[in-house]
């Protein structure tokens, strides 16, 4: 929202970062154009994912937030521009090497029916394995730790079809955790969950960040939960970033009108003090 510091526009980006001109960021993207064939969804986008923060990407349906997340996790190659990890182009790094730094949880992940939770979570260790080293003691302790963090240890031997939606989501998050990456990209980790389970999952995400110092980027639909659990919000509309910064800075009544075309009041959350969005809606407007 503020003008770029003068240092960045003169010196090369990487050196400016190391000299402490801007907050540290291992993962960033420059001048991204993303889309599928003729259909361009994101154009001319720059983003720095700040280290040791939880960033929530918000925006209306079809604004390109999932597309951006897929590009950051090299699931989608940019038509133009680059995603850089530690200063190196992510599409030129060996994909297995990237997988040891960035973990991605897609929006609707799939797994075979009969797979057990332990087997699912163990697949998160794939980037650390070879054909002859498939279940080392490192693998075993990483899987056990991931299951413990999500409270899924007792369900280790259940198959996925025996779990509730919330448990299944926790199993998937355990898989991403077992991957042991510093960065986690989560695409709508709370989809299909009731409110209590949404809060559970986000509490877990926040704990991972607070206790293990992981950097998390997640796409979220619920603005109030995003404001509560994220250190930074990135608001997108029509493939561009409209605003980014702390939730209190970003989540304003003007922004909601501009980005979501939503008439709403923003009041302090009575529990957390973060912005709370209260939509007006047609029913209450005239009265």
């Amino acid at each position, binding site marked *: 929202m503020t003008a770029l510091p003068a240092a960045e526009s003169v010196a090369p980006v990487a050196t400016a970062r190391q000299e402490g001109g801007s907050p540290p960021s291992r993962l960033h993207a420059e001048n991204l154009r993303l889309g*599928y*064939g003729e259909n361009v969804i994101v154009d001319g986008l720059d983003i720095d994912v700040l280290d040791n923060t939880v960033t929530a990407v918000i925006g209306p349906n079809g604004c390109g937030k999932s597309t951006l997340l*897929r590009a950051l*996790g*090299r*699931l989608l190659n940019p038509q133009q521009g680059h995603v850089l990890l530690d200063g190196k182009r992510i599409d030129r790094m*060996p*994909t*297995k*090497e*990237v*997988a*040891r730094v*960035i*973990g*991605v*949880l*897609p929006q609707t*992940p*799939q*797994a*075979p*029916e*009969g*797979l*057990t939770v*332990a*087997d699912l979570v*163990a*697949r*998160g260790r*794939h*980037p650390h*394995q*070879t*054909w*002859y*080293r*498939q*279940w*080392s*003691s490192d*693998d*075993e302790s990483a*899987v*056990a730790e991931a299951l413990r963090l999500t409270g899924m240890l007792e369900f*280790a*031997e259940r*198959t996925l079809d025996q779990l509730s939606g919330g448990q299944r989501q926790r199993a998937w998050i355990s898989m991403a955790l077992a*991957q042991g990456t510093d960065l986690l990209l989560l695409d709508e980790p709370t989809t299909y969950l009731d409110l209590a389970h949404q809060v559970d999952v986000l509490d877990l995400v926040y704990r991972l960040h607070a206790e293990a110092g992981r950097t998390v980027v997640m796409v979220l639909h619920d603005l109030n939960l995003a404001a509560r659990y994220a250190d930074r919000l990135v608001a997108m509309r029509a493939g561009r970033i409209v605003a980014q910064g702390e939730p209190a800075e970003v989540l304003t009544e003007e922004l909601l009108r501009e980005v979501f075309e939503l008439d709403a009041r923003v009041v302090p959350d009575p529990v957390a003090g973060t912005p709370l969005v209260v939509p007006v809606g047609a029913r209450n407007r005239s009265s």
Partner: protein
Amino acid sequence: MPGRPPLRVGPASWVLRARALAVPLVGLAVVVLLMAVNIGRGEFPLSVTDVLNVLVGGGDRPQRFIVLDLRLPRSLTGALVGAALGLSGALTQTITRNPLATPDITGITAGAGAAAVSVIVVGGSYGSLTGQLAEIGVPLAGLVGGLLSAILVYLLAWQRGVEGYRLVLVGLGAHALLSSLTYWLLTLGDVTDASRAVVWLTGSLNGRGWEHVTPVAIALAVLVPLTLLGAHALGALQMGDDTARGLGVRVNLTRALLLLAAVALAAVATAAAGPVAFVALATPQIAMRLSRTAQPPMIASAVLGAVLTVGSDLVARTAFGAVELPVGIITAVLGAPYLMYLLVRRYREVRA
């Protein structure tokens, strides 16, 4: 970790799954036994112990001639063809995450069939392919036809990557098209060529010699180790492209290579014995249920493919008195109800 006991030797480590280990071992013993019984049956019957005795180097001269020169190649071709088909089916089912996506459903064996029949019919009536040339020509045409139809199906199903369901639908279309092409070819040839072609088309082990064993054995010796190297990535591939990429798998490359291996296995098997139906479809699923794994196990699928094919050949040769049926009839009779079961079950799943 409960459910995942480790097997660790030096730097190597695996999950120790007792059932997944036992199924191929028991299966292997059953194959050897079925082969011994199959070899023993015939105009000069031999006991199982006589056959096994010859196989380990004993027996008298006539016994050795009957077993090693006359009957072993047939059973061995059956076992190897079944193993190749089982492994091929396990690969394609895992890659596409669809139990219907096997070479015999998706046009690969149909392509091999059309190519082989065109050689039999055209070569037969013009007399250009006879004797030795026809012996090599038919399997070679089958191999080329299978590979070509697989490439065609893959390209037609390609749309920014290949998705399992599209592959099955395009494959079913290709299968129908190539089958009608085959029947049209049959009407062109004269009666003897056509009947020779029909026997080949049902899948037969009759008259198979060492020259049929060798190509399948070489293909398996090369492709089985390669497949096992790739099998580790299969676990990740089975969870969808995005998750697999996130886990550091080069999705399109790995999938293309493994599919190529599967097609080569199916085409070589078809070239040796004709399109033996349903082995590739049924055995991976049976192996998966016996091993209690979440995806078709590679080695167990290969071994059970051999069990099913040799077992079916034994039934085809001996259960109907003097009449010897082609092995493909028996596998089809066993496999067709299973295909119907799969279709009905999938339909219910979609409806639910």
